[in-house]
């Protein structure tokens, strides 16, 4: 069994209404110097595979097909750990 985190973020060219609101709120709270806030998702996946490379490939396919919408998002697969 392998495990990895898939980090999904909106593309830099896409405005992030949640991030902008959190940024504004943080500034209003008096947090100085806030420049930008972007919000995304962290999806933790456990998967059966023969080795970590196969696990990563399967997670990559899963990410492409379902976890992300390539029109607005990109993703990064974190370290694949054997459990």
């Amino acid at each position, binding site marked *: 069994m392998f495990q990895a985190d898939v980090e999904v973020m909106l593309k830099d*060219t896409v*405005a992030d*209404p949640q991030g902008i609101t959190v940024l504004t709120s943080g500034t209003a709270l008096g947090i100085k110097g806030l420049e930008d806030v972007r919000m995304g998702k962290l999806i933790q996946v456990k998967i059966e595979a023969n080795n970590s490379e196969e696990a990563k490939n399967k997670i990559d396919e899963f990410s492409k097909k*379902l976890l992300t919408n390539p029109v607005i998002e990109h993703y990064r697969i974190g370290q694949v750990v054997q459990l």
Partner: protein
Amino acid sequence: MNFGVVVFPGSNCDRDCFDVVRDVLKQPVDFLWHKEKPNLDQYSCLIIPGGFSYGDYLRCGAIARFSPIMEKVIKFAEKGGLVIGICNGFQILLEAGLLPGAMMRNTNLHFICKYVDLKVDSVNSPFSSQYKKGQTIRVPIAHNEGNYYIDDAGLAELKKNDQIVFRYVTNPNGARDDIAGLVNKNRNVLGMMPHPERSSEMILGSADGRPIFESLVDWMKKHG
């Protein structure tokens, strides 16, 4: 001239669509359960209704897009069959790649439920022929993710091909170029965030959405 209304777990506008077709348009209509793979040849138009399919988990429409029936819906659309996606139905069509672009959270982060004015920008489609170009209509919206996004090249393409059918008069959600509804390049698939099925009878406050369904019936009469 059969209509089919696709039902997903979490759809909640399916009955409204069904009733408009059956009771207002007086046309035959069936419910189509998402888990089935029915023969769609007998249908002229499929309606993908609004709601919260699969709880809007992951992204709106992302899970419904992989329901068994969607494979058939995609083939139906590719063969030129008429498909209309309303609200969550629009989001599903975007996720399925039947329409270009993607849906983002409303810029004000609110679920917006109210009547809005729309401008009819194109009457050159099976969905809008019964309107006048430039006409303003009043139709309700009810969504959290109606902030339509498309990149610059995609937007230029939509404009060039006259694919933008409805625009918000006052943009409620941040949608690019005020887009409320658009068709694909082949003009047989429409996606729109506003709800014409909730505005097809005056008893509900507006009948401005009814010409969409009447346009469909008119188109089917002319094209079989």
